[in-house]
């Protein structure tokens, strides 16, 4: 699994870790039931503080991607398709928000954007 942390992304470090692990789960690189590295190990390997990794794991657990058993460690939770879809929809929403921003600043109408959108989708077919 790759975990790449950059300062240029503007995302908090814990979120970058979170995203890397999610990606590994989506791509099936991390399989259901597979153990994740311990918080301490990952923190030491990435040379970041313990609490930063802990935060990433907490968020992943809250979102249902991993499960943590006290004293044993964290493992990948059974795959939940709805969860994955929701995650992807959220990502798409982010892009659309950007489109909305750009169109608003440059005074491009909703109709024009939708037209463009249709064009791209139809091209695919």
């Amino acid at each position, binding site marked *: 699994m790759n975990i790449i942390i950059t*300062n240029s992304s*503007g995302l*908090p*470090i*814990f979120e970058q870790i979170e995203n890397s692990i999610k990606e590994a789960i989506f791509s099936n690189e991390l399989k259901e039931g597979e153990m994740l590295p311990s918080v*301490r*190990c990952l*923190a*030491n390997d990435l*040379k*970041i*503080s*313990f*609490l*930063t990794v802990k*935060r990433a794991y907490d968020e992943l657990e809250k979102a249902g991607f991993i499960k943590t058993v006290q004293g044993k460690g964290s493992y990948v939770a059974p795959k939940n398709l709805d969860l994955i879809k929701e995650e992807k929809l959220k990502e798409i929403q982010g892009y659309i928000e950007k489109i909305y921003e750009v169109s608003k600043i440059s005074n491009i109408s909703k109709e024009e954007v939708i037209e463009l959108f249709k064009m791209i989708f139809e091209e695919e077919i």
Partner: protein
Amino acid sequence: MNNIEVKDLSKKYVGFSLDKISFNVPSGMVVGLIGENGAGKTTTIKSILNIINSEGTVKIFGKDIKTREKEIKKDLGVVLDDSFLSAYLTPKHINLVMKDFYQTWDENKYNDLLKQFGLPTDKLVKDFSSGMKMKLKIATAISHNPKLLILDEPTSGLDPVVRSEILDIFRKYIEEDESRSILLSTHITTDLEHISDYIVFIDKGKMVLNVPTLELLEDYGVVKCSEEEFSKINEKDYVSYKKGKYQYEVLINDKNVFKKKYGITSIDKPSIDDIMLFYIKGER
């Protein structure tokens, strides 16, 4: 569990006083003490160690340092600025001295550490470089397997390569036993971004901040704006500001709230140094 609990630590000197410093060092955690030269970092550390007699309470492993100093110090590894190692000893001599001193002295561990750090066993300490001296001090401080490591400026004056090696030693020290902790003071705050879980910031003898490093790095932000924009910001929403000729720089401590409230999206990520400067030099 907390390995150190400091409460209302105060000390008065002529022209300087330490004023009610309180913080904890939880087990498994690294706590970084930061501040300007003369801010009170060393006074705080020496008070915790009962080298200086101060007001307030210090508990280490849940025991009061003033009444149970001897038993506490058995489980303590300490590195202070003024070296306790004689310049006319070699690492080999130090082993002999420490063996008599600590019942729990682990000779094998010490020798392993010397090897790992690339330290010669037969060279006099006075001929060591400052990086080597620091590594030797740390090796000496952790070879009796202490539960807690307290270090005053362990990385100051050292080059980036040695500093990163030293941070690795610290990581390994905690990894070996997660009930351990480290308290270190430093003014090289970039080191802390990579290792410390909490930051305690002392300025002119007063504690200004005691927060998770994560919060400092992720929630704080610097907004650069015009005077007009600045005038619209509620003073509750920023920590301090610096007024320049062409722009205002404003330190905020909750980026997300600020974005929502003021619609300002371009917020710079400050370093710990930047944050320190805003607290010390900024206006309110």
